[in-house]
């Protein structure tokens, strides 16, 4: 096993993927706890579809590092999504469904008009660890570090706002600001992570770790820490298994997450009975 890992890590593209993937998994799990508890799980799904739309358009226009275009666009959509959900007659779940399917449709239409359904598009959909270019790696590292720092700085406030928004407001916190911060950070992580995980699979690394750790852990701090660990472990196991069995990395990571979720659910049952 160790030999395989050494051999695996001798590839520069896998080194990049492991570095970026670990950081993204960690951040996705941190944000995921708040998103799941606030019942915003689907926002990840919606944003990844928006990301797909933007990436296909950017690629069609020949952008060399399309992430630099996708990141701001998806961030703006995240803010719009929250705004729609907060104060219009369209409820947020319908708003997410509307925006995500429209963006997906636009993306598919653009591809049909330009390159057709080639490997590039397939990589967007289901992810590829080969997709990470050097500038992408720098961007990913930068964003991940920002997300992690902001999460620690706002940890106390995020807890209050997530647990009880009215109490937070009555205590003088600007609750909307923190919801916006979460949405923006989620947008960043999703856009960066979707190159590797794929549009269809990225939202799972946000939701799974939080749900898995909530099976067993009953304190906010423990849930946050354990979902970060679960997320990174699933990622590393996933990338290892995908290397050995030659399975799509994104899919393998989701499957490992699923297995852990089932395992934790069984443990929960045993503890409770």
């Amino acid at each position: 096993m160790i030999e395989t890992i050494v051999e695996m890590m001798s590839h520069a593209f896998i080194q990049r993927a492991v570095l970026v993937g670990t950081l993204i998994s960690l951040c996705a799990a941190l944000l995921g706890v708040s998103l799941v508890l606030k019942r915003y799980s689907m926002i990840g799904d919606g944003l990844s579809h928006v990301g797909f739309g933007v990436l296909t358009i950017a690629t069609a226009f020949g952008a060399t590092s399309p992430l630099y275009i996708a990141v701001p666009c998806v961030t703006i959509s995240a803010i719009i999504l929250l705004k729609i959900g907060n104060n219009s007659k369209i409820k947020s779940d319908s708003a997410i469904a509307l925006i995500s399917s429209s963006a997906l449709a636009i993306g598919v239409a653009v591809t049909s008009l330009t390159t057709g359904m080639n490997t590039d598009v397939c990589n967007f959909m289901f992810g590829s660890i080969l997709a990470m270019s050097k500038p992408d790696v720098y961007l990913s590292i930068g964003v991940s570090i920002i997300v992690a720092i902001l999460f620690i700085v706002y940890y106390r406030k995020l807890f209050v706002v997530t647990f009880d928004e009215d109490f937070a407001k009555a205590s003088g916190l600007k609750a909307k600001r923190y919801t916006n911060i979460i949405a923006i950070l989620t947008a960043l992580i999703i856009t960066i992570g979707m190159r590797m995980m794929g549009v269809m699979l990225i939202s799972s690394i946000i939701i799974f770790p939080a749900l898995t750790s909530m099976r067993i852990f009953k304190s906010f701090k423990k849930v946050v820490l354990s979902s970060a660990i679960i997320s990174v472990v699933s990622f590393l196991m996933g990338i290892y298994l995908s290397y050995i069995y030659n399975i799509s990395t994104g899919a393998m990571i989701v499957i490992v997450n699923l297995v852990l979720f089932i395992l934790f659910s069984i443990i929960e049952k045993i503890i409770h009975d």
Partner: protein
Amino acid sequence: MDLIQIKDLSFSYPSKKDTLKHINLKVKKCSFTCIVGENGSGKSTLLKCILGLNKGYTGEIKKETHIGYLPQKSEIQSNFPATIEEVVLSGTISNNVRSIFYKKEDKEKAKQVMEKLGIYDIRKKCFADLSGGQQQRVLIARALCATKDIIVLDEPTNGLDPSIAKQIYELLDRLKKEENITILMVSHDIERALNYADTVIELINGEITFEGKPQDFTLGGAK
């Protein structure tokens, strides 16, 4: 001394007609005030104006101190992973919004409050696993961490067994007598609440129709 003074407060939600009309109100220090009224009479709206959750009202609301708030139950909390300690400690946030971590004095305050309310020994338990009465006790503890003067409660005994509700009222009564905490609450549970309140305010259609001692208040007297 008046902890809260309201002068000519009017408020309406967009697209609805007046919810609160020309409210004048004073909440005295160390009083136990109970706001009663039917659904839609504007009780909760009034609380939210006082707490600053409703913006865009006309009139004046003067607050002398920090308010500890106990909102109505939210669905999110029913399976939220958080210990009693985490919930109570989070009440101290208004004391130092800026800092990154809880300060030593915050932790000390939370400990004192939990001891006072008899929940210190179970502080590592999960909030969501507690009974309704225990949950309210924890939320009262959190409110006490946010203030040293006044707590505002929105239907604190909703959905509780009568015997448990009685314990909550007795706890509030004790806080008022022993700790000089002013209590302002909205309640449906008029009969029982009036055993403990010293001031009753009745709201009908957004207007105050009664203000005075509970013994002078007759249920449905406005009919």
